[in-house]
């Protein structure tokens, strides 16, 4: 079942580190947010293929926003 990966902190997308189709392991960063002057990775909760990335670098995201979808 596809699983949405959500931001756990409000911040700005600093770097998108995965693209659709990439295989990721649990704990791999999919996106790096910048918040509180820190680079904070948003990690894949489980292994799988990235189905969709919903954010762009420089975009502001709120806590709870969906950042990516894991197939």
């Amino acid at each position, binding site marked *: 079942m596809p699983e949405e990966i959500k931001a*756990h*902190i*409000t911040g700005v997308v600093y770097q998108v580190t995965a693209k659709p189709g990439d295989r990721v392991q649990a704990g791999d960063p999919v996106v790096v947010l*910048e*918040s*509180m*002057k*820190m*680079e*904070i*990775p948003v990690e894949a909760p489980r292994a799988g293929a990235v189905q969709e990335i919903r954010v762009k670098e420089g975009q502001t995201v709120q*806590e709870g926003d969906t950042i990516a979808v894991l197939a």
Partner: protein
Amino acid sequence: MGLRDLVDELAAKRARSRSMGGDDAIARQHAAGKLTVRERLDLLFDAGSFSEIGGLATHAGIAPDMAGKETPADGVVTGYGKVNGRLAAVIAYDFTVMAGSMGRNAEIKCNRAREIAYTKRMPMIWLIDSAGARIQEAIGSKSFAGSGLLFREESVMSGVVPQVAAMMGPGAAGTAYIPALADFVPMVKGTSNMALGGPPLVKAVVGEDISAEDLGGSKVHCEISGVGDLEVADDRACLQAIKEYLAYFPSSNTERPPAIPCDDPADRRDEDLLAIVPDSPRRAYDVKKVVRAVVDHGAFFEIKPGWAKNIVVGLARLGGAPVGVVANQPMVLGGALDVDSADKAARFIMLCDAFNVPLVFFQDVPGFMVGSKVERAGIIRHGAKMLYAVSEATVPKLTVVLRKAYGAGYFVMCGRGYEPDLIVAWPTAEISVMGPEGGTNIIFRREIAGAANPDEERARRVEEFRKLINPYMAAGAALIDDVIDPRETRPVLIRALEMARTKKIDRPWKKHGVMPV
């Protein structure tokens, strides 16, 4: 009957009590992946050290539908024994007897066990595996109006003797407040759960369909609610965790925590400490690596590892003496403090202070989280809890600033204003009310806006501001005690701990403060 016959009769009654709820019920207990109450006590206490009290009790015989029923030990085994050589009292519910429900006589036994712990000043351990109150005996105003004193007594005992409530099965309704008031709550994965109202009550009252596991299983309480302190794999791991936890604590608040001989050299320098913290101040790292590199043999007993992970708290030893560690975790939310992490740290600081366990703070905190979400959640109130707890604590307090020490984060992590007995910084330390970027934008807002090239002007101002943030400014003003080579962290802390051992601070008399809960 002669005395020999009477003795035989006694032996038969004792055997009946020890047979618990019978073979079928014991088989069901085992099939559920649980040990029986007596198997648990064998594992908890040193061999042959357990003395049972109230073993011959049975139900009160006050409910018509209980007539003819047997309730060996009335569904709860109570007594005292030695855990790693030191006495502790126990109340262990027996699920094989009427689902471990709390009967009237069972409660009398529990009161007796708590009295032992309280008046003789020894830890109180609950092994909870109980459906809650025995409705047959508790229903109606006549019995219920006098009940509930256990929670008052548990509150009074809080901070006097260590209290551990292990969830080794269900703990519904009343039995859920026992862990809530205890100091340490391990939960067995898959078999334990707690909720103020179990699934049938929830269905009846609010119409929600939910399983006991989804309502109050170990994942819910150890990762979301924060009521559980540690998720453990099975009964054995649970009992082992209790023993390990208690080893860090004195038997009561009038004693020091027990030190053990230590063969990890006090002057050990750890080269790894030069490589853990990244060069970029914006990069995360695992602060637990720092903790493990510093403490005796790398042994760290973490409390609430799955909840509010942006702060790390737990027990360890330095030179054989127990300490409580509070460390910011840059890996999670950049180490920024929020509502739950402030709550977790405040409670842990109070726990250590209550039982004379010195505190060691490792600071790397960009500050408290800001924004509407945390303000509405009451971050001011929760942050104040941590200020309050660290201010109240009179145990030895040692602070190491690893990297960031910004704003109120520096205060709550035992900055200079909070009576640290030693405060030192690594050369990477940044102690300031806020970072150079944030500060520049506020202080030089007009100058930047009015400059021919605002971006250039901002960058120049940020660089100037940055020069003001380094540990030598703080050490030069004698506001921190030293800047240390990270490799010296362990020897520096062990020497300071020895220096602070005789610390004595008398606060003005008061009934109690008004804690911002």
